[in-house]
């Protein structure tokens, strides 16, 4: 049955919008019913909640729910809203998808929407004593002065429920009991890979609970986007997940090009694909170095950086940047390839293929490595989907989620490559996925590097781009999962709302369930094997 009919059967007054993405507008009181029916649909269960995007439409506040099926990979968006700006409430879907717990928390933090039934309605990124909701259109940007006092974190969370007479009641759920032994890890800690803070309750050496505290590197990128023109928004994507700089920017360019109807040349598609894969290799090499460093090995760190420098040199020659390249542009790429590009890339691949055995000899087979990684931190396939942990972490748990395969973009439907899937779901599988992906990425590049077609590397676009009204989205497989761009345009030269799907937020959210019962020392290795980048989580 067609998805529109399915929804209309449940809610006869559902409306559909098809400007860009297909959106079903459902009233708030039937949202949960629709979501539940789609989630447990017999033929085509929408079991993967990609994102909840909070929205402020002026009159109303609301949210967009991006759903996908893990079997057919069909997608649908639900839209719901409430006109009560004083005390906005929406039903929670956190009982259907676990990832909704943290995504709804984000919407609460930014828009003040209370999700009825969500067990954890604390702020997510901003300080607990922050006043106001910054993503609302009427928020005064100057209203919160820099507060230099130390933040006090509550040990309880709020859960709201609706009384029969329409009033709200609030229940407090306990995060940590007074008798819990809580160790604070971060935000200044070398192994949290950035400014992440984990409040960890311990029983002896065993982890009882992990409560991630985010927001130490929340830069307010999404709010800034609303006052930038489309070409200006590009620069900020590179700084989200700096190890997926190309890919994130690729996603945003793709989204804008799709919405504005800009056709890019084949040469640019080739260049983008090759750059994306080089970036993936770069990122996975850094992943290897950091994982090993976190586990106390120093020599392999030098191995990883030795080859990574070769990739950075290739980037630098063509783009001018090492870590952050600012290379993709709306309509193509910034500059043509350096004359030595093909030669250098081929040299690199030859070198890498010849030397990868060193990586495995020193670490993969090492007895310390295997005992500390194998069977540790297991994430089941079911949980991986429910927590929406995309990328290597999901694939290590047996969830085939590669955007390049299921929703091909650029050149990915023309090249032959394997999607690396393991089934163990432990730290070792997560490690192996990345190591194998390095080989697969090289395989992809080899198929493209000699056939880059002649032509323009960039089509001319107007400096001011206006995008027709509608909702558009694009997603790419970044180095650590599905990076999505969700854009709502009201026809202006800057976006009405431009939201990014963080690849790391679901990973951090899943840490609690993955680490429970493991040793504290393994928490570090598990975190490293999940491979998150904090600025991308906090945005």
């Amino acid at each position: 049955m067609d998805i529109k009919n399915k929804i209309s059967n449940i809610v006869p007054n559902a409306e559909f919008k098809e400007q860009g993405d297909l959106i079903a507008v459902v009233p708030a009181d039937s949202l949960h019913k629709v979501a539940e029916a789609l989630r447990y649909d017999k033929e085509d269960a929408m079991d993967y909640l990609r994102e909840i995007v909070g929205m402020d439409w002026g009159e109303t506040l609301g949210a967009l729910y991006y759903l996908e099926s893990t079997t057919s990979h069909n997608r649908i968006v639900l839209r719901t809203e409430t006109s009560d700006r004083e005390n906005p409430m929406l039903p929670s879907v956190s009982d259907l998808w676990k990832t909704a717990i943290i995504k709804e928390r984000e919407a609460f933090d930014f828009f003040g929407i209370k999700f009825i039934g969500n067990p954890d309605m604390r702020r997510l990124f901003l300080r607990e004593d922050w006043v106001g909701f910054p993503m609302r259109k009427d928020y005064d940007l100057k209203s919160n002065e820099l507060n230099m006092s130390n933040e006090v974190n509550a040990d309880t969370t709020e859960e709201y429920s609706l009384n029969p007479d329409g009033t709200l009641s609030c229940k407090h759920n306990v995060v940590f009991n007074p008798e819990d032994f809580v160790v604070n890890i971060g935000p200044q800690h070398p192994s949290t890979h950035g400014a992440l803070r984990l409040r960890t309750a311990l029983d002896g050496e065993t982890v009882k609970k992990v409560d991630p505290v985010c927001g130490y590197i929340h830069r307010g990128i999404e709010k800034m986007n609303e006052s930038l023109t489309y070409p200006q928004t590009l620069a900020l994507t590179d700084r989200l997940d700096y190890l997926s700089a190309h890919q994130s920017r690729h996603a945003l360019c793709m989204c804008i090009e799709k919405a504005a109807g800009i056709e890019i040349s084949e040469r640019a598609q080739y260049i983008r694909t090759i750059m994306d894969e080089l970036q993936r290799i770069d990122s996975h090499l850094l992943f290897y170095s950091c994982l090993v460093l976190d586990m106390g090995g120093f020599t392999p760190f030098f191995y990883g950086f030795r080859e990574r420098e070769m990739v950075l040199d290739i980037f630098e020659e063509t783009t001018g940047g090492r870590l952050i390249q600012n290379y993709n542009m709306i309509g193509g790429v910034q500059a043509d390839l350096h004359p030595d590009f093909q030669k250098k890339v081929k040299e690199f691949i030859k070198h890498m293929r010849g030397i990868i055995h060193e990586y495995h000899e020193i670490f993969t087979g090492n007895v310390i490595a295997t005992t500390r990684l194998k069977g540790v931190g297991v994430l089941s396939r079911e949980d991986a989907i429910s927590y929406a942990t995309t990328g290597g972490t999901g694939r290590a748990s047996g969830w085939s989620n590669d955007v390049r395969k299921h929703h091909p973009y650029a050149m990915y439907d023309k090249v032959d490559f394997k999607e690396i899937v393991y089934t163990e779901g432990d730290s070792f599988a997560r490690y192996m996925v990345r190591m194998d992906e390095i080989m697969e990425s090289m395989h992809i590049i080899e198929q493209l590097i000699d056939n880059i077609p002649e032509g323009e590397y960039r089509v001319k676009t107007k400096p001011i781009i206006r995008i027709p009204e509608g909702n558009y989205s694009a997603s790419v497989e970044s180095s650590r999962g599905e990076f999505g761009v969700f854009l709502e345009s009201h026809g202006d030269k800057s976006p009405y709302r431009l939201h990014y799907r963080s690849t790391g937020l679901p990973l951090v959210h899943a840490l609690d369930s993955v680490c429970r019962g493991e040793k504290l020392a393994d928490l570090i290795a598990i975190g490293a094997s999940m491979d998150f980048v904090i600025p991308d989580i906090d945005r």
Partner: protein
Amino acid sequence: MGMREPKIRSMKYEEFKNNDYLEEMVKELNANGTNVVVTTADQLIDWGRSNSIWSFLLGTSCCAIEFMTLGAARYDMARFGFEVTRNSPRQADVMLVLGTITNKMAPLMKRLYDQIAEPKYVVAVGGCTISGGPFRKSYHVVNGIDKIIPVDVYIPGCPPRPEAFYYGLMQLQRKIKLENFFGGVNRKQPKPVEE
């Protein structure tokens, strides 16, 4: 009073761009009555201090990753004597602030700075720490860490190249070499008000 030129092994004095700044600094110290005629013992200690700077990394984002390359073999910061990086402020001489400092992080940065023992230095790395960088207009980013803590050296870039890190850290070494270690001169003390 003339200034003793601080010597750095890998670069000549004239090749540094902002020597006037050092000269100004000495002049200012002299004007405040600080004795900058450095004794031999001072010289020896400063030589030691400037060549074994232990840094405390406050790495929050992109710039920190670029700093990691300095630790690896190609750029190898051990050649300059600042390869010992600490993760505890109590064991460090200089705090390197690598990456955006947000409103939520600012009190923590201040606290970490306060935990470093004197004499201490701060290096602001990257556009973000200097002025807020690309996120200057954001509601949650501190527009320059020098609003909160004193900064000794600024290394601009987004992120700075590894060579720029070196240049900046050598500037810090030169600054240390000019300091008078004995005599209780604390450069952070406000100058006494003269009646």
